[in-house]
């Protein structure tokens, strides 16, 4: 296995190549999702998970053009750990767009953090564990963070801590219902249709409501997560991010 990783590392050489053209934001977005689901298990969310290989700097040993990168993503590289991937040319192109975009971005938090101190903040001052679950411990009301370090880059995690409302994925949207007798329930929206709505409420109950029996119902446009801007110092945020980055869950064989 180690030999294979070394072989993969040889694919990439220094020498930054500029993006060949502007990429649509939706391509980058889609590419990011695909990268996380297809590539990040080995390469990590920042693209630097394989020793000696850093996909996030726009430096590639065996490829320079987008087309060559697409070919490598789809066909893999024989006799290395880089396998062929069952992605369409369009999706492979989106992954390239994503890699080009993160090469142009800030890589990490401004301050180097300490994961151990970050865990203490997670459990203590930040009370993150009052909503989030890690490795089977903690509630289910917020997104499970067990593998968040394999899914989000440090800059994204930092942004979520300081400005949680900036990006709320559709499957993390909150929804609020008020029954005819005035009882209010706010929870994570799991599904809805013309007649009904399904939530996971704050007590971790799977709730299903008939809209005809509700006095009102609506999306909650703000994130239920508080902002930690001004509540945690820059160092504490960096520590917390370091801890979250370390959460990789089970490593795929």
């Amino acid at each position, binding site marked *: 296995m180690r030999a294979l990783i070394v072989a993969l590392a040889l694919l990439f050489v220094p020498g930054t190549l500029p993006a060949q*053209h*502007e*990429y*649509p*934001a*939706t*391509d980058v*977005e*889609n590419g990011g*999702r695909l990268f996380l689901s297809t590539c990040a298990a080995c390469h990590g969310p920042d693209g630097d998970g394989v020793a000696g290989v850093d996909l996030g700097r726009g430096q590639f040993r065996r490829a320079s053009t987008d087309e060559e990168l697409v070919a490598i993503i789809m066909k893999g590289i024989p006799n290395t750990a880089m396998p062929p991937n069952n992605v369409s040319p*369009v999706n492979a192109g989106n992954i390239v767009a994503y890699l080009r975009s993160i090469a142009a971005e800030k890589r990490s938090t401004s301050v180097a953090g300490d994961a151990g101190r970050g865990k203490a903040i997670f459990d203590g001052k930040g009370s993150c564990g009052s909503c989030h679950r890690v490795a089977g411990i903690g509630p289910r009301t917020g997104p499970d963070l067990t593998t968040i370090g394999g899914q989000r880059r440090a800059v994204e995690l930092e942004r979520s801590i300081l400005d949680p409302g900036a990006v709320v*994925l*559709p*499957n993390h*949207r909150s929804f609020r219902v008020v029954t005819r007798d005035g009882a209010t329930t706010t929870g994570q*929206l*799991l*599904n*809805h*249709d*013309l*007649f009904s709505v399904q939530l996971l409420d704050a007590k971790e109950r799977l709730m299903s409501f008939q809209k005809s029996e509700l006095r009102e119902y609506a*999306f909650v446009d703000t994130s239920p997560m508080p902002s930690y801007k001004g509540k945690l110092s820059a160092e504490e945020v960096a520590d917390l991010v370091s801890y979250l980055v370390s959460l990789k869950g089970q490593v795929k064989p």
Partner: protein
Amino acid sequence: MTARRLLPLFVVVCAAASLRAQVTFDRILRADQEPHNWLSYSGSVHSQRHSRLTQITPQNVGNLELQWVFQSRSLEKYEATSLVVDGVLYTVQAPNDVVAMDAATGRVFWTYAHNPSPQSRPCCGRVNRGLAILGESLFMATIDGRLMALDAKNGQPLWNIAVDGARPEAGYAFTLAPLVVKDKVIIGTAGGEYGIRGFIAAFDARSGKEAWRFYTIPGQGEPGNETWAGDSWKIGGASVWITGSFDPESNLTYWGIGNPGPDWNGDSRGGDNLYSNSVVALDADTGKLKWHFQFSPHDEFDFDAVQVPVLADVMWTGFPRKVMMWANRNGYFYVLDRTTGEFLLGKPFVEVNWASRLDEKGRPVRVPGMVPSREGTVITPGNQGGTNWYSPSFSPETGFFYIPSWVNYTSQYVKQDAEYVEGRVYGGGAPRTTVPGVRAGQLLNFAKEDEGYGAVRALDARTGELKWEFKMTDFTDAGVLTTASNVLFSGGREGYFYALDARTGALLWKAALGGRVVSGPMSYSVGGRQYVAVAAGNALFSFALRQ
């Protein structure tokens, strides 16, 4: 009476019964006189998807209950509309198995299985939208470029031909229900994403011999060929994948034509690209073009004009007029004179940002800059259109035209280079969702209304004015059926089957069928009892009033 005397009488009775069992074209033409049957894809040659049955009413529709379910042995989308002939229901189990069953119980009489060539590559699912019938023969066009006739009594093949030039490995595929006109079976080819050259062709119902062919892209020397730059006409798409209509008085058959290719990059095909995104009116005997109307010239948004041409005789500005009504994927609702093709009315039925208006001839006035681009351009309606192939309905009772609609729906159109390689997608880009994570065909729905929703929209057919709207939270691929008793049936991606009041849009009844409705409902009756059938998920459901 002696046996000798009885015999001739017996022969006469049998002959009459046999004749009655024949679905003559005369019966198809007068389908409204036998509303217990559903003899063609849209229920009649005028394609109104309007049943004359009146047993189910707004007052009693709440008593509908499930009579039977046919579970198809296919995980593909169930897009077929069934036929019903005198108590026998014929349907297609995707991709190309024909099933005959008792329309009152769902019990199967026979199944004919066709295994399409693995070379077939329909763009958007190995689907089939139904059958046609004439005499005692059923007709099915297949995704591997074949047309076949089966004996309606036992499913035995009568003939089975490879349609000339319809090579599945090059992207040609038939997904539509054929249209029978007189003694001919008419079909068209899908494949607009593969650089095909589209066509409509008619075949002798008895022999399968091709009678005429109309290429949806004119060849060199033919009028319209000049609307394609260079050789782009050879691989320009212009597919046909929804059943047309027929007007017996003018002997014209009408067909909607699909997008030009490459879909999202028109650089190589300068010009209007006739007859892509048009309706063509063809002489039903010869296939000769009588008139055409192009909804979206030089399209780069994949706005196929592949909708059912709905024909009606209406009062128009005080005079009776033979019209064609058309809610187009491009977001406009049109009314045309169906004899001449004259443009009578055009009005958006959803928001449109790529055109500012239609001119006096019905041609869209384009908004500058609203074209696919390398960095992406947000266009509304989005790639699936304000509506798509989903069957609309026209009710002569209400005068309303009912459209399965996608509202607040946008796409980001990204233009890329396109290179033609036989059998591969020739797209020149790809539309993107503008709401990441919401529209990935998932079972769960997290969408907000401003991100898009499905609806049945009812327009006054004379003015295009919105009369009412029935909103769903998710989009809809379901067709609409109306009845003479003012009940409207439709469904959606949420998996419900609805009955609405056709006059007001009020919800009268619903059933949770647990799967997307991706076809149009239809109605029939057996033994004096009215049924309404609809496919959802991978099954066909039939409902009737509780007894």
